[in-house]
């Protein structure tokens, strides 16, 4: 038996080549990732990409087709074995909240504490209610609470038995934007306070960015990239990640040196070698903030449409090559649709993919 490397021991959860599926069709394929203690991870992807199925597999509600899931180094799921959900010490918050309508708020939170002595369970309930800011709601019933309040109770119920890991399935999808903005920092604080790792599932990148330390971008059952929110936005590794995260355009270009490409907007240089051979046809990822309005530039484009965003304008500009790209401009630069403006490119890092 080989000793595990030290960093491996600290992982709360490890997925190795996990595949999940129903009757022949594979929903999740070869997913591998890890979560460290106290870390908040996020499975981010469009609906139907298999992220919820993967979450359910971790909770113990789905059977693996291959691979294994470990918690604290102990195997909890393989294709032939699955620890029952009730023994996993994994808490879960559901998309539809799923509070028990026949129980009071206090009884809902205490639901997972049946093995605790009565007094410490009561203490725990009171403590959690205070933590989620709903002290005094003990005797109320779920239906008398607002959506945001129910969401907090669902969180309190899930973390009451002090699970090692908390799973959250689109926990904010039913809430309006304002409520969500309030709730997200609160939940982060609570999780940190309880020293709990968490894994969130969402299709909303803003939610992922504001909650997660580590994002796992998924599409069609495959994890495309693992990284911090900054990394997946600025250094997308696949074409899917590049187009799914944030706004952006693919600008056709040709490689003209170790850190340079030639495009309709001239030669563009990056900080680092991009590793493509000269003359390779590529698509360069351009974010709206990479192209700036510059009256002195030799490159021009015609404004096709514009959006006023308060602090800035977001223009769609048609280049001479026919390609339409986003362009950011401060809100002082108010131009009419149809007008020609000068453009310059400001890129630190070239993100590109072989032309399709």
């Amino acid at each position, binding site marked *: 038996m080989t000793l595990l490397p030290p960093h491996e021991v600290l992982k709360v959860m490890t997925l190795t080549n996990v595949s999940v599926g*129903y009757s022949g069709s594979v929903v999740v394929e070869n997913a591998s990732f890890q979560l460290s203690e106290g870390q908040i991870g996020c499975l981010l992807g469009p609906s139907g990409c298999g992220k919820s199925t993967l979450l*359910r597999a971790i*909770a*113990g*509600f*789905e*059977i693996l087709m291959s691979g294994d899931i470990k918690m604290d180094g102990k195997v909890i799921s393989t294709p*032939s*074995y*699955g*620890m*029952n*959900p*009730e*023994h*996993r010490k*994994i*808490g*879960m918050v*559901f*998309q*539809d*909240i*799923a509070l*028990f*309508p*026949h129980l009071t708020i206090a009884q809902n939170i205490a*639901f*997972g504490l*049946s*093995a605790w002595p009565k007094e410490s369970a009561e203490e725990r309930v009171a403590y959690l209610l205070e933590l989620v800011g709903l002290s005094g709601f003990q005797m109320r019933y779920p239906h008398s609470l607002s959506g945001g309040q129910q969401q907090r109770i669902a969180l309190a*119920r*899930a973390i*009451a*038995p002090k*699970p090692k890991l908390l*799973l959250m399935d689109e926990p904010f999808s039913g809430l309006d934007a304002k409520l969500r903005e309030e709730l997200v920092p609160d939940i982060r604080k609570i999780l940190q306070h309880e020293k709990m790792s968490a894994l969130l599932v969402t299709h909303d990148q803003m939610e992922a960015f504001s909650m997660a330390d580590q994002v796992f971008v998924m599409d069609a059952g495959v994890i495309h990239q693992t990284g911090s929110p900054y990394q997946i936005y600025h250094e997308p590794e696949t074409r899917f990640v590049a187009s799914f995260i944030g706004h952006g355009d693919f600008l056709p270009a040709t490689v003209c040196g170790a850190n340079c490409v030639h495009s309709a907007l001239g030669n563009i240089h990056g900080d680092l070698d991009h590793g493509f051979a000269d003359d390779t046809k590529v698509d360069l990822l351009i974010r709206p903030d990479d192209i700036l309005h510059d009256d002195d530039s030799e490159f021009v484009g015609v404004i096709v449409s514009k959006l006023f965003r308060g602090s800035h304008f977001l223009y769609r500009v048609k280049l001479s090559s026919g390609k339409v790209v986003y362009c950011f401009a401060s809100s002082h630069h108010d131009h009419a649709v149809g007008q020609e403006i000068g453009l310059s490119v400001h890129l630190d890092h070239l993100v590109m993919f072989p032309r399709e």
Partner: protein
Amino acid sequence: MVDSTHSSFARKPNWNWLKIAAIFIAAILSIPILVVLVNVLIGDGEVWRHLYHTVLADYVQNSLLLMLGVGFGAFAIGVPCAWFTSMCEFRGRKFLSWALLLPMAVPAYIIAYTYTGVFDFAGPVQTFIRDVTGWSYGEYWFFEVRSLGGAIVMLTLVLYPYVYLMSRAAFLEQSANTLEVSRTLGYSSQKAFFKLALPLARPAIVTGLSLVLMETLADYGTVQYFSVNTFTTGILRTFYGFGDIAAASQLAGVLLLFVAVLILLERYSRHRIRYHSSGLRKATNRRIELKGSRGILTTVFCWLPVLFGFILPVGVLIYWALFKAELPGWDFVQLAWNSFYLAALAALIAVSLSLLLCYAIRLNNDRSVRASVGIAGLGYALPGTIIAIGTIVPLAWLDHRLIDLIKYYTGENVGLIFSGTLFALLFAYTVRFMAVSLGAVQNGLGKIKPSMDMAGRSLGLSPAKVLKRIHMPLLKGSVLTALLIVFVDVLKELPATLVLRPFNFNTLAVRAFELASDERLIDAAPPSLMIVLVGLVPVILLSRSISSRIEHSN
């Protein structure tokens, strides 16, 4: 290490015994209809030709006229009442909106006996006319209660609540916005009703009407008593009178054809309801205030069905039962006891099977299970007479085989084991009333979202504990409702009980029928009243749940 295997809530084949049980139940419950169908197919053309030349035209014509009349009547009463109580404000609206459901508690045959007692030649009304005017028999015209028209009126008076209930729900679901939008587009409120509200509610109205027509086709007590020849009376006459199973089955087959059309109509329009309803209940439906003569007219209009469908007949029943009828004695207690324990047993069986079927569908929702549940719930559309014949024929066959077999080996005659006993009765009730209990249980189970099961599991409960601590408390209400509805329906059921009851075994409904057939209408009042009073319980529950739902949304 492999002590805990995969949970039952993850997909696994271990629950397949539930699936097998579901398919088995559906197969058993579909026996009556299959027997009738097979008899239709194997019956020879001679029987068919005979029926065709003699009674068939009569049956078809009467049944069609009955359906047409009752359908029209139920529409003309149900839809306006639903519209007034849901969209308008007038004197007594709150009371009327649930009182309009009361006639549901009265079986058609009971209202028929009551009105016959009141309006026929020897009844108080005609007697009064003769006393006042001095006329005698034949010297004046008075409408004949015991006629096709009378049957239409009787059935309409107790069946319109189906249309009322369905269309009212549809009207309430239409948001005030829809109507307001039409007003801003230049529609008057009358025009908006005909161009918008009514078409939007059409699927719901059609669903209600198809239920009314199914009940009309299934009715035996009223048409038999009024001597209107329809399929149900014809089937029982051929079956009893001539012992001709083939002919009875042929007739039942034609009746099935009618029923099948209605089922399709009902399924189709239920399907359409989903598209037509916004799913959102608008909290503020501002009602149109009806003042002055319009308000009075509306109040009177909505009072009429309550008056004639419930207050008058039940009042008469109470009067007869308390002051005119023979004092009910020991045999009445026996009658009530028979009815109650039979109904309770049937309710227990139907609800237990429903629970099993609903869990089968929840735990493996595949096509075979869904089809099984669909088949198990078909009986609500089948007239009791068809179910009775479909039950007695195979059971009698089985009994005779068993008698022969046992006689051959032991020389003893054991008598009828299934067909002449309560077994047959309970089986037929289960077939007939499975759908109502299925509906109630499914409704309750649907409210327990799968995520609640998962929440329970992730909070440390085993599957058995999830059932005990989450499902049982949440399902209690629906299960009680299901038990109650089946109980009351069995209590009211007449034709199947009449055919299948063991020799000398009487229930309240059968006794009321027998007494009425002997023209002892007043003595039929105590058992009739008993049925109506017990029948009131689910109606009150229903109206309370409706009004509480509206309170919630306001």
